Each structure stands twice: as structure tokens, then as C-alpha cells.
């Protein structure tokens, strides 16, 4: 199973963001557009979690967490393939991990 990463955009002011809201956090306009992202992005930061917080996640550790700058102009936290580094061009989608829909990126 794989799905597109989603984000939001404010029609009047053009602001784009990732955390779902019913209004634009910049100008307050209601009913922002809900859009599907291309999945293209660039790695902004990486950490490898060796010490996981929950029993579910301990089963997956170590795992790679990344901050990705999406081509559409928003930033998100995601899982990624081992070995990703800052400035890598990546491609991502939403996959299921430990029962949750999780954005996942691999090198493009």
C-alpha cells in the first residue's frame, strides 16, 4: 500500500504547509486547499534512531528519520532508507509502518 503525501495551500496568500489545519496559519483564511505532493524533495537533516521510544518501534530500530524539503515548499518529518544524507534528492510516498501511515523517502 502506498499513497501520496498531502499538504495544504492558502488560495489568497499562497502559503503552503504540512500540519493539517482548517485555516491558513499565516493569514487565517478558512478552507485551505488540500493537495497531493509530487513526493519529490531534498533531505534537510537526518538522524538514526537507535534508542526507540516504544516497544512497537523498538522492533524496527535502528531506523532513519529525515526532515525533507518538499518540492512544493513545505518541510516534513519522515522515515527514509538507511544511508540518506543532507542534500540527497529523494522521492517519497505514504506507507504503513507499525500500523500507522508514515511518509517514507528513498534516494531519487
Amino acid at each position, binding site marked *: 500500500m502506498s499513497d501520496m503525501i498531502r499538504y495544504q495551500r492558502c488560495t489568497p496568500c499562497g502559503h503552503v*504547509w*504540512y*500540519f*493539517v489545519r482548517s485555516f491558513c496559519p499565516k493569514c487565517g483564511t478558512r478552507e485551505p486547499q488540500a493537495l497531493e505532493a509530487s513526493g519529490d524533495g531534498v533531505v*534537510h*537533516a*537526518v*538522524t*538514526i*534512531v*537507535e*534508542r*526507540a*521510544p*516504544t516497544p*512497537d*518501534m523498538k522492533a*524496527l*530500530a*535502528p*531506523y532513519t*528519520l529525515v*526532515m525533507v524539503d518538499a518540492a512544493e515548499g513545505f*518541510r*516534513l*518529518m*519522515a*522515515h527514509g532508507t538507511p544511508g540518506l544524507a*543532507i542534500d540527497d534528492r529523494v522521492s517519497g510516498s505514504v506507507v504503513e*509502518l*507499525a500500523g*500507522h*501511515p*508514515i511518509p517514507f523517502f528513498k534516494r531519487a
Partner: protein
Amino acid sequence: MSWITGVGLLPFGRHEGKNTIDLMSEAATLALDDAGLKRGDIDGVLTGYATTMPHIMLATVFCEHFGLSPAYAHGLQVGGATGFAMAMLAHELVAAGRLKNVLVVAGENRLSAPGGRDKIVETLAQVGHPVHEVPLGPTIPAYYGLVANRYMHEHGVSEADLAELAVLMRSNAATHPGAQFRELITIADVLASKPIARPLKLLDCCATADGAAAFVVSRERTGEAAIRIIAAGQAHTHQHISEAPSLTEFGARLSMDRAIAACGRKLATTDADYLAIYDSFTITLVILLEELGLAPRGQSCRMAREGYFSRTGTKPLNTHGGLMSYGHCGVAGALAHLVETQLQMTGRAGNRQVADAGLAFLHGDGGVMSSHVSLIMERQA
């Protein structure tokens, strides 16, 4: 004008069988004794939160147990910035003439409570976004691991460089009998310690502890101590690292600039005789020192290595050992920084005493470099 008239700090580490309220009571007793005040003198009480006792009225619970019936009391929550935020609020309330003696107190049995370290790691990870972050399995060290990775990339800092701050905090803690970890460590020890969230390793991280700290902020001096809070400031730029405006520039400078503006004098952080800076991780301390103008970007580790921030150096820093080595029990973690500052400024730091601490700059952050609070303390001549 406000005075820090009394301070109290417990040893951090394991206090088996004691709960949050027990620990808070012990620290409060020390602070009242130090200030020479009685319970009836306290007309304001500020507490933080306790992860091991998530009560919705912690301040009132504490007051009832300790035997206080103040005119003003409540809890306050800004994560790691809570301690200095309480100090700021106490200062503002006292300076405004609203209250005479405010007891600021925090404590937590974070290490010995059921679940111990595992429980606290899971609980603290919840500062992440419940939909867009927490399900990914990050931890507090992971959020800071992301920040560290980016900061190191932009400013040419290495893991060995970061380790300098852990070594410094440990060498400070080695001289304090109350510190949780007192055995000296080397750069190699830090590099070889267990990876937690790369690039951060165990010895880059603060230590989970039981403990408590308290102090009294007063309108009038009550004894010999003549230490004032002269100004305070805050800045809040984001909560979640995903929404941070930047992973390398945060709100510390803005917060400190507001504190300096509030004091109405042309001060700079480089005027400090003593520094108390939040050190939840090596990277936290590095970024805060550099953002506060105490070191050029990318240079704080080198300066630490050269002794600039050592007890006998130009800018003594966290001489009790900080969160990394004195220990971290939540809200009281930063209060320990303030207690140590007051001890240094009153010349009561014993074998840790710095040459002359007339002016001190304090800074704390909460969340993931999200909420910032700055304090400036001065000794009355």
C-alpha cells in the same frame, strides 16, 4: 526590582521511595531556611509540572502538603524553559508590587518512578506532533539529533567537537558532591558511548534523575544575599521541529535581546561573569552559546576545549555540571542552574567558586529549541 533571597538544591540521582511532593518539600525547606523566611511569609507559589505526577493543580497540592496558604499560586508549563519562566514570572509579580515573597519550587522522581528511563523517554517523545511526528517513533534525542546533524553540516562541527561540552560539564560535576555523575570522562568516552539518535550518543544527552530545587524571589532583601534579577525576556518561535522556521537559527537571541531591552542598560552577553545555559544535549549548549553571542558560529566547542568556559576561564559555565552531569529531573533541572548561579554570586560555591560573579546571564529552552527564556542577574555592590 526583585531579589533571590534563598535557594535550595537536592543532590540529583536516585531518591528511592520519594515522590514529587516529597522532593519539592525538601527543596522548599532548604530555600526558606536559606532566605530566613517562615511559611507565613510566602504569599506566592509557582510550580512547574511533573511527568510522574501529572496533576492539574500541582501548585495547590504542594501548598496544601507543605502548609502554605498563599495569595497567589499556580503551575506553569513550557517544557525545559519552565524553570526560568517561573523565575521570570516571580520577578515580574514581585517587581510590580503584587507579591512580597514568591516560592518557586520543582521536583520529580523521574528516575526511580515505576517505568524509570523507558517511561520518561516515551512520555517526553509526546512533545512531538501527535499525527505528523509521534507515530514515526522519534524521541527527544531524535528531534535534537536532526538539529545536530544540520548544525554540524552548516557550521563544520564534528562529533568530537560536540563532545567537548559533555567533557566540560562532567569535569564541573566532578567537583560537586550533589552531582549524579562525577567520574571524569574523555572525548573518546563520549564518542564510544552508546548511540541514541545519531549523531547524538548517550554522553551527549542529559541524565534522567530524581531531584528537586527551589528558590525564593522577594521584594526586599532578607539577609546577606544581595542578588537581583534585573531583567527577563522570552521568545516562542514554534513547538514542533517540523514547523521550526529554521533548524539552525532559533529564538535565543531574540529572547535575550528582549531581556537586555527590559533592563534598560547597554549590556551584552559578553559582559557576563558567569553563565547558566540550558544543556539538555551537547548540541543545545553549542547552539545557545553561539546564538547568544558568547561564541562565533561553529566556535564554541573549540573555545570550550581551550578552557574559555571552564571554572577558571573567561566565562565560567554551569559550574555544577548542568543537565548532562549534575542531572536532569525535569523542571528542577534548570532551577539547579539558577541555584548554582546564586551560590556563585554570593560567594558560597566552595571549591567550585569562580573568581567574581557580579553579573550573570541565564538562558533556557523548552521543546525542540521552541520556547526560550532569558534572565539577567546582578549582585548589588
